[in-house]
């Protein structure tokens, strides 16, 4: 048991980009696993919501990778790192649960397309997903490193990926929690 720092949208699908919500509010497949295993939940802020708003377009890393957005993510990372630090001091085990495919919250898979811009239209199935972390996750890693705190184990919610498999996602999350 320990503390799971979860992406904002896992407790609040209303924060998703338009057409992106997979359920009404709480994304139970992840929360149920955390509950069953007795993990404390800490919700992280959604970096894109406060910066680009509810009417934001679907975007890739390159569109968010600006100095202003990184400053915004750094500010959020300080707030999250404060709490991570408190929990680490208390000897808690820490896990971070991100959103695979997200330009901000991806932990192993993010999205990239150097050509994307201008009028928002692109072919269905554009292969934008690529290995890597989202921008907020990078800034959180940097902030924790600056404080001498090791980066926690990570798991990713995979709904945005073409090969999403809920059972596989659950198994991967359980394995991460079990360490």
């Amino acid at each position, binding site marked *: 048991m320990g503390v799971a720092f979860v992406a904002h949208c896992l407790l609040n699908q209303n924060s*998703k980009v338009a057409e*992106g919500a*997979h359920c*009404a509010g709480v994304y139970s497949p992840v929360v149920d696993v955390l509950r069953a295993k007795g993990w404390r939940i800490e919700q992280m802020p959604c970096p894109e919501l406060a910066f680009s708003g509810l009417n934001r377009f679907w975007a890739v890393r390159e569109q968010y990778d600006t100095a202003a957005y990184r400053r915004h993510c750094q500010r959020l990372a300080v707030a999250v790192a404060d709490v991570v630090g408190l929990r680490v001091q208390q000897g808690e085990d820490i896990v971070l649960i991100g959103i695979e495919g997200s330009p901000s919250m991806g932990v192993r898979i993010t999205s990239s397309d150097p050509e994307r811009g201008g009028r928002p239209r692109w072919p269905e199935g554009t292969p934008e997903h690529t290995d890597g972390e989202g921008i907020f996750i990078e800034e959180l890693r940097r902030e924790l490193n600056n404080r001498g705190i090791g980066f926690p184990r990570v798991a990713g919610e995979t709904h945005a990926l073409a090969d999403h498999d809920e059972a596989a996602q659950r198994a991967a999350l359980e394995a991460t929690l079990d360490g």
Partner: protein
Amino acid sequence: MEPDERSFRIALTADRYVNPPPGGLDGLAVLAEAGWGVIQLPAEDYPAVVAERMLVEVAEQVREFHSHGYELVVVGECDKLGGALAVVGVSVSDQVIPASAAELRAFLDARPVPAALRQLR
């Protein structure tokens, strides 16, 4: 924009209802079943500077939902929430401090249809 599964309903929820103590009310489970999203508020035992920093971010997100007509309520108590929301020009007056799942569910079910949802219909 095409509609999706979102409820347009969000509860600003005290930590003790997200991470209930033994025997406490699991507010997160009630909110999930009722289709509400959750914005978690800082735990009561966090140092003031940590809680205040978190509430700044909570308030900025709440402002965005408020300006788009999402239904917002407060579940539980959080000392400095009102002040943080005032900074971004928002007030959330509907609040419940539930003692039971039934009380929380009745409160949620009595909320009006969100303005954002009425506009979609």
